[in-house]
């Protein structure tokens, strides 16, 4: 079988298999898979409102995915995207409520605050990794908890004992009246453009700059990079800082676009962790992240409509969505299977 045919067949088969197994699960638990998938489809593309909300959901996934992918390319496993996103969320919301400035200054300032906060949260594990070889996975996981509970405490202080900050000033908001009118009051905001711009930025850094070349080299082989005269430690720190900055910006999307405030959280948002899957689905390339985030965001958002329209319990819906993503992610197995079959045939 030709290579091209395999490339085309693999994603199609994996999605179909995912849908099929998901359907079986629905049938076994006594629900109609057709109704379920129609509800899923309508939940994603049903009307302008859902399309707007789907895009809104994709926005933070894009940035979280970029953050994970960027670190991955430098050979680092950034599990701390969640925490970096939370501090970015808080920082942007804080700047949004603390001062009132002209939009042209206020909005960039709020975004910058999120970037700096996220970068700082990425800098600490980067520094520890570079200087003391502390594994970044441990540090970033722990930094997630620090981020969660520190921001909760800060929110209490800022709001005077409440559980959420005031809504941000209009001048810091990413919301757009144009989008709201277009999509029947969905929460779609200009952040989607920022996220897409960051996709281009990541591509540019990785493919067109010396820095990107060095980062990738460090990712492939640290010893070889060092031998070639690159400063490995500097590159590790930089990779984590940039990764954290992407994640912080993802938090700003929630702070300035989706919610327009920050509220204390009982647990993680999950966006950062899903970002890991988004990055891996997209094979850690900028364009791949766009596909990964679109798939993840659409399924996550569309799934909300399954209990609503088809009456399927949330738990079943979560299993079905997980199964679909599982099969998409296992594309490699299907590819292997196809290759084996092809080889066997040739042997004969």
């Amino acid at each position, binding site marked *: *079988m030709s290579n091209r045919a395999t490339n085309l*067949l693999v994603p*199609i*088969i994996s999605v*179909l298999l995912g*849908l*099929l197994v998901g359907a079986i699960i629905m049938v076994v638990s006594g629900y109609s898979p*057709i*109704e379920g*998938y*129609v509800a899923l*489809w*309508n939940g994603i593309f049903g009307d302008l*409102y859902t399309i707007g*909300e789907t895009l809104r*959901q994709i926005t933070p996934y894009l940035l979280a995915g970029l953050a994970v992918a960027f670190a991955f390319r430098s050979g680092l496993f950034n599990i701390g995207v969640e925490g970096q996103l939370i501090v970015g969320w808080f920082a942007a919301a804080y700047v949004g409520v603390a001062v009132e400035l002209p939009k042209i200054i206020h909005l960039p300032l709020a975004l910058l605050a999120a970037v700096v906060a996220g970068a700082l949260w990425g800098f600490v594990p980067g520094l520890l990794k570079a200087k003391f070889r502390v594994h970044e996975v441990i540090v970033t996981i722990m930094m997630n908890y620090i981020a969660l*509970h520190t921001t*909760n405490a800060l929110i*209490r202080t800022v709001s005077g*004992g*409440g*559980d*959420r900050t005031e*809504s941000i000033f209009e001048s810091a908001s990413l919301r757009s009246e144009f989008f709201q009118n277009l999509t029947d*009051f969905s*929460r779609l905001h200009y952040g989607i453009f920022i996220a897409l711009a960051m996709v281009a930025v990541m591509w540019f850094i990785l493919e067109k700059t010396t820095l990107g070349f060095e980062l990738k080299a460090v990712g492939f082989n640290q010893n070889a990079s060092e031998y070639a005269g690159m400063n490995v430690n500097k590159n590790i720190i930089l990779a984590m800082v940039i990764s954290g900055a992407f994640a912080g910006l993802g938090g700003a999307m*929630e702070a300035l676009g*989706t*919610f327009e*405030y920050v*509220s*204390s*959280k*009982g*647990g993680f*948002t*999950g966006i950062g962790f899903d970002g890991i899957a988004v990055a891996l689905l997209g094979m850690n390339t900028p364009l791949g992240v766009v596909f990964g985030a679109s798939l993840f965001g659409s399924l996550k*958002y569309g799934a*909300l*409509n399954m*209990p*609503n*329209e088809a*009456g399927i319990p*949330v738990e079943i819906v*979560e299993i079905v969505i997980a199964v679909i993503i599982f099969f998409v992610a296992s594309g490699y197995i299907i590819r292997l299977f196809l290759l084996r*079959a092809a080889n*066997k*045939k040739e042997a*004969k």
Partner: protein
Amino acid sequence: MIKRKFGLGLSLMLAAGTMLAACGSEEDTSTENTGNGGDSGEATEESSNISVAMVTDVGGIDDKSFNQSAWEGLQKFGEENGLEEGDGGYAYLTSTSDADYTTNLNNLARRDFDVVYGIGALMQGAVEEIASQQEEQQFAIIDEVVELPNVASVMFKEQEGAFLAGVAAALMTETGKVGFVGGMEIPVIERFEAGFKAGVEAADPSVEVDSQYTGAFDKAELGKTTANRMYSGGADIVFHAAGGTGNGVFTEAKERKEADPEANIWVIGVDADQYDEGQIGDQNVTMTSVLKGVEMAVIEIAEKTQAGEFPGGETTVYGLAEDGIGLADSRGAIPEDVMTQIEDFKQQIIDGEIEVPETVE
């Protein structure tokens, strides 16, 4: 071999084709259905029956406390008025994260329910946003105030019920130490804590209160470890105001009771009568529960709406005096003489002689 593989590919394509085709045709009928749904909605309005729906927070309708009470309220209202679950009757949607609140509220509003409830303080921002966009739709929120003409707000004086729980705990403890396990550190839960502490203080100032927040409403394992620490630290009665997290407090207490049936280990439940949660063999660790009349409040708003008096823009406050807050039947766990003292305090609160603080000093 090559033929066989092509056969497989072909059948896969066929399967895909039929599935997609099925999707297409089903889609048509489903749009028709929604059309019908709208019609039947109008029909029910004519018969003066209203439809009600609610959005849960992340706890879900089986959290054995807050959300569950609200859902039971809707079910009861539905049964009394001959409604069916679904469009034009009563329904719920579960939120899996904060970002889902607005979507779920919006989805229910679009399905033409007459009143859409946001259950829980965490939903305030979302209710405010959707209610200001959809001015024709009636909303209700529990535990927070949204100042909009199309939102009915319901608040509870949790501190009054917690005060009585504090009195009960202070009079019943044998170790002189009791515990409080909170969920997230938000004003609602702080009212429970403040009331509980004030109650203990009023009944027996020498009793020590160990107060801990777990930071979550849906983490039973955290509730269990926190309760473990408290019981190990000498507390014998733990009051929880932590939703699903509190289920872990029950688990811990039951394990201790099972290991040593003679142990003096008690839990005070919250929101609903949690007697069933505390059952272990033929013993029970639930001393009593602080009842919060979410169910009653939900029904009352629905009934008022049905009568054409939707309390939009108003805030209804339920306390001991309104019977919106109270203690559950202890089923003999609390002896008669202690009960009389609790009743005494209750009367004083109702008469306004005791003002229970809302925040911890």
